């Protein structure tokens, strides 16, 4: 048998393979490029960008949990302008697809950020809209929990850019399918799920929360069963857009599980902290898996749960 075909098409883009890095776990692309050859990836997703730079939350910002970690980085980022000036040049010719993750505290922030990220030619192949952010106007409730709110945001952002627009969903909701549907109706080109699960940790000796901001986002292998479930629920709803599966992927087999559950692409997050070459390794192992399982085209796996 000839080598399995690993190329995947989604949102009008061609990806060399289905494995991307996840936002916030691979910096702006250059930090880990030395250990994780970008050309081995299907793509990378940048740290979340906002209109203005953000310093992030007070420390401690991270702590380890069983087979996982909590973070409350606070969406620290260099801001739109510095991103375009300082980070984009590297990404222009980095040898893989680039999705830029972005967010705002108001609808306007989101719109202006999407506009600002558009029209730069190569270097930004698509946008990933992070809707798990507190909505300042709505008193801190997240944009991503009420279908109408999320749908409206997608619709407005959709009008502000011509780039493929992937919407990243939060898992901390009763009915993810309702949200997903609203986003697709709002014009989402695809759906990324999942973002982190809300959690907390306490130091029993000091009696203090282990994160300065008390609550944080849980990621890593611990959340994989929840992530697979959400991907599968959304996939079964057949909303007509590709899904990017995210959550606890550490190996090529983990990636295959997400594809089988219904994802077209996957993202590798926390694994890159455990070993810097994780995403490239997942891609390589996924190729090995396809070869061993006599899968001639990796996209056959999508939704092929028996």
């Amino acid at each position, binding site marked *: 048998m000839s080598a399995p075909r690993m190329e995947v098409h989604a949102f009008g883009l061609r990806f060399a393979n289905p494995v991307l890095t996840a936002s*916030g*776990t*691979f*910096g702006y692309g250059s*930090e*880990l490029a*030395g*250990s994780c050859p970008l050309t081995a990836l299907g793509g990378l997703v940048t*740290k979340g960008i906002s209109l203005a730079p953000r*310093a*992030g939350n*007070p*420390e*401690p*910002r*991270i*702590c*380890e*949990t*069983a*087979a*996982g*970690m909590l*973070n409350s*980085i606070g969406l*620290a980022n260099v801001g739109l302008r510095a991103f375009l000036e300082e980070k984009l040049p590297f990404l222009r010719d980095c040898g893989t697809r680039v999705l830029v993750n972005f967010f705002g505290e108001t609808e306007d922030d989101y719109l202006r950020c999407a506009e600002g990220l558009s029209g730069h030619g190569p270097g930004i192949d698509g946008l990933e809209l992070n809707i798990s952010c507190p909505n300042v106007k709505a008193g801190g409730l997240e944009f991503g929990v009420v279908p109408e709110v999320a749908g409206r945001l997608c619709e407005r952002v959709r009008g502000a850019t011509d780039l493929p627009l992937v919407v990243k969903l939060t898992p901390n909701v009763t009915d993810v399918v309702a949200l997903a549907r609203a986003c697709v109706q709002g014009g989402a080109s695809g759906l990324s799920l999942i973002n982190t699960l809300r959690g907390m940790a306490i130091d029993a000796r000091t009696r203090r929360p282990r994160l300065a901001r008390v609550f944080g986002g849980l990621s*890593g*292998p*611990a959340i994989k069963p929840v992530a697979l479930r959400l991907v599968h629920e959304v996939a079964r709803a057949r909303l007509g857009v590709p899904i990017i599966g995210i959550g606890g992927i*550490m190996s090529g087999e983990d990636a295959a599980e997400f594809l089988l559950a219904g994802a077209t692409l996957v993202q590798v997050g*926390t694994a*890159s*902290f*455990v*070993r*810097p*070459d994780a995403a490239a390794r997942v891609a390589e192992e996924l190729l090995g898996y396809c070869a061993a399982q006599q899968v001639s085209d990796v996209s056959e796996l999508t939704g092929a749960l028996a």
Partner: protein
Amino acid sequence: MRFFTAKVVESQDLGGAYSWLCLEGCEALAAASPGQFAMLRGWPGHDPLLSRAFSVLSTGPGTAEFLIRRVGRGSGLLGAARPGDPIRVVGPLGRGFPVATPEVTELLVAGGCGLAPLYFAARRAQAEGRRVRLLYGARQSCELVLADVLRARGVELQTATEDGSAGERGLVTALLERELAASTAGLRVLACGPEPMLRATREVARRHGVPCFLSLESPMACGVGACLGCAIPARDRPFLYVCKDGPVFAAEEVWP
């Protein structure tokens, strides 16, 4: 920075909850300078999940040594590793101590497991023929690990313990105070240890007008600047990141 799998050649329990670990297959760490660190991981499964940060203690042909204080699960597992065990290593990482010119005399101040980078600095200074003095403090004598080795190798060493069981009774900063009171000419203070000790060291150095560099710790996920987890409050911007801006900082850069 490289990512590779090394192998334990030797491991020794030094007492006082310290282990000494020697790894082979560490050619990539040969270029490490004192103050730089590596992320280590050596157990099966995903729990514990993250690698642990350890300062390079010294390097040899293909080998690297680490001093490991067993304080929790990860350090406990690394400290109990046996010859032949595989250890995954990312390193060398971070910014080490500033390079010293021949006219500089480094005054090293170590508290507890803060010894590791200063041990490396002391040996490097010796190798380069620079004069170096080490002030080394701990709670009790059994925690003054590797002091004998350093003495045997001719490092000028003064010790202090809180319970007086070895060296002077009291804090290592008292030794520093006395040294700086005697003379500050050409001196540069390099320190590593618990935060209160580092703050006190900075204060003493500042009072005597001596340049001071601190090696800091903070929880780390990646060690390479990708997660932004290792933030510490800084002077002229909100945060610096221990893994890429440090772990060694000029004393006045941090903790405004």
